[in-house]
């Protein structure tokens, strides 16, 4: 009887802990979601009723529309470029031993250490100096740099998990190095590369700090437009657009999970 009680108690404790952590992780998003359906003109929590009017406003507000399109353009270019550079880097680091390899790995991890603020500020000054100001090129360059460590890690992990015997087998069967790359290595790296691309896309879509510096009205991404909006208005539109951005990113995550397996993408953090 005592043993039974102890099991029940420890199970109860375990699930309470899980519920607590889950609640803690989702509270900010939940608060914003609830506020977004409030009918009130002012930001209020908890909401006094239910209305979708702020969603309508968020979807029709021209600055948000423009910024969303900007964001998509920047994300498309930035994560693709990041994938290209990151894959090449990962291949280099995994396959070859060379002097300065350790230094290269350190440089690759540096965006995790340097604050986004500094990166954005640096690119702002550089862009001004090169007279390309706050153009798309500068925004994309910033986002590539910020997403590179994640993409590189993702491809690197896939390369590590690739059994070298597979490439040897292909070679043994008559495939030249280029054919091995095209028919065996690349197809098997594809999930890791796609995962890396998706992580980069999610990071790029929601990046704010660095983007604040390197974007202008013409090139601003959605998080920057949202910030500008909060500075001028105090209605729940901002909550609605937040909810939409969260939903969009969640859908991306779900797609990633469905086709690639989330574990594979999250493995970018595992050494």
């Amino acid at each position, binding site marked *: 009887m005592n043993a039974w009680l102890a099991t029940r108690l420890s199970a109860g404790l375990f699930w309470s802990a899980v519920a607590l952590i889950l609640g803690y992780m989702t509270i900010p998003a939940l608060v914003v979601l609830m506020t977004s359906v409030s009918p009130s003109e002012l930001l209020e929590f908890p909401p006094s009723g239910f209305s979708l009017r702020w969603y309508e406003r968020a979807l029709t507000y021209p600055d948000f529309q423009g910024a969303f399109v900007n964001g998509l353009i920047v994300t498309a270019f930035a994560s693709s470029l990041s994938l290209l550079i990151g894959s090449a880097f990962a291949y280099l680091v995994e396959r070859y031993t060379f002097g300065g390899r350790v230094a290269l790995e350190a440089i690759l991890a540096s965006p995790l250490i340097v604050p986004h603020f500094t990166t954005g500020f640096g690119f702002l000054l550089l862009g001004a100096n090169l007279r390309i100001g706050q153009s798309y090129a500068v925004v994309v360059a910033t986002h590539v740099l910020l997403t590179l460590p994640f993409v590189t890690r993702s491809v690197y992990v896939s390369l590590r998990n690739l059994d070298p015997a597979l490439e*040897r*087998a292909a*070679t043994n*069967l008559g495939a030249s190095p280029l054919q091995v790359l095209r028919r065996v290595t690349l197809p098997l790296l594809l999930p890791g590369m796609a995962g890396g691309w998706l992580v980069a896309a999610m990071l790029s879509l929601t990046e704010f700090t660095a983007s604040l510096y390197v974007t202008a009205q013409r090139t601003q991404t959605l998080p920057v437009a949202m910030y500008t909006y909060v500075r001028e208005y105090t209605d729940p539109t901002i909550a609605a657009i937040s909810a939409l951005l969260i939903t969009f990113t969640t859908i991306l995550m779900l797609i990633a999970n469905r086709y690639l397996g989330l574990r594979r993408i999250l493995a970018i953090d595992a050494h």
Partner: protein
Amino acid sequence: MKGEASPAVELIKVSKSFDAVQAVRELSLTIRQGELLTLLGPSGCGKTTLLNMLAGFEVPSAGSIVIGGRDVTAVPPYRRNTGMVFQNYALFPHMNVFDNVAFGLRMRKMAKFEMARAVGHALEMVKLEGLASRRIRQLSGGQQQRVALARAIVIEPKVLLLDEPLSALDRNLRGAMQVELRELHERTGLTTLFVTHDQEEALGLSDRIVVMSRGEIQQVATPLELYRLPANGFVASFIGEINRLPPARCRTEGNDVVFEIAGGIVLRARKRNQPTIGAGQETHLFVRPEHLTLVEGDRPAPNRVSCRVTAHLYQGAYTLTRVDAGPLGNLQLRVLGGEVIAAAPIGSQIKISIDLDKAVILAG
């Protein structure tokens, strides 16, 4: 004799070093056309390095490799036309069975209809007809093994290289696969190099066995010769179970050879044609457990020795009985059945007979 005119593979004074370690030393070896040759040795003996050099994955530090009459020492692996079966099979997980087997033919730009026929034939050879469209993940270990074999034989390689292909299978399957490998070899007639550290596999499968140790060949012989007449102490103790007796001085006495061992023990054998052993020389005697027999009562038997039973290892069909034979050290007998366990309990004194006529006698 068959094969002597044009060997399938020739290794001429091949050496390979990795940094300070010499994995293979000036090794020369000829593989005859159509034979199944086994490289046998403990891990680290250089057999895998040798295989990788034949496939072209490793470049020899010195010496040359000739396959089918062509010097391929500097030829890259993808132009050597060797067919390799890897230890873990290395099947392409993103392709189905057909595409795995067809891979080598695609690289050779074979026409579609011809390819389909060749793949079908290869799958038939390994008894996998009807599984062409299966994913690799859906196959059992034994089936994956067969796909790997089909993929290697379909390109009609000059030499088939098998890198411990049975080691990943469970014990029951391994026996059955050995028989099938042998049958497949008969049917295809492909020159085959089989690498293993398992002496039972080697003895059961091979036309000839190459025993390797520390990068050098210890002996090349048929399984029968290898078991009966090992060339040195390493081969004697590596192939099967064997008892090594203490060093002996030998002399001839009429038709007998007499061995005197420290501790006053004298053993006799019939004189035989063994030119390496001269009178007064120090010799080493190796005796298989099956050539030691229990002697009941006072029945006369050659080379009777008293000893004390120290252990019984029951193996089903036979029992390995360990005894302490005083000056002769610890010996192991192979006794049929399991009755000996009750008849000669541990600790009891028994008499054994050592049949030296079948012993391996090596000069010291």
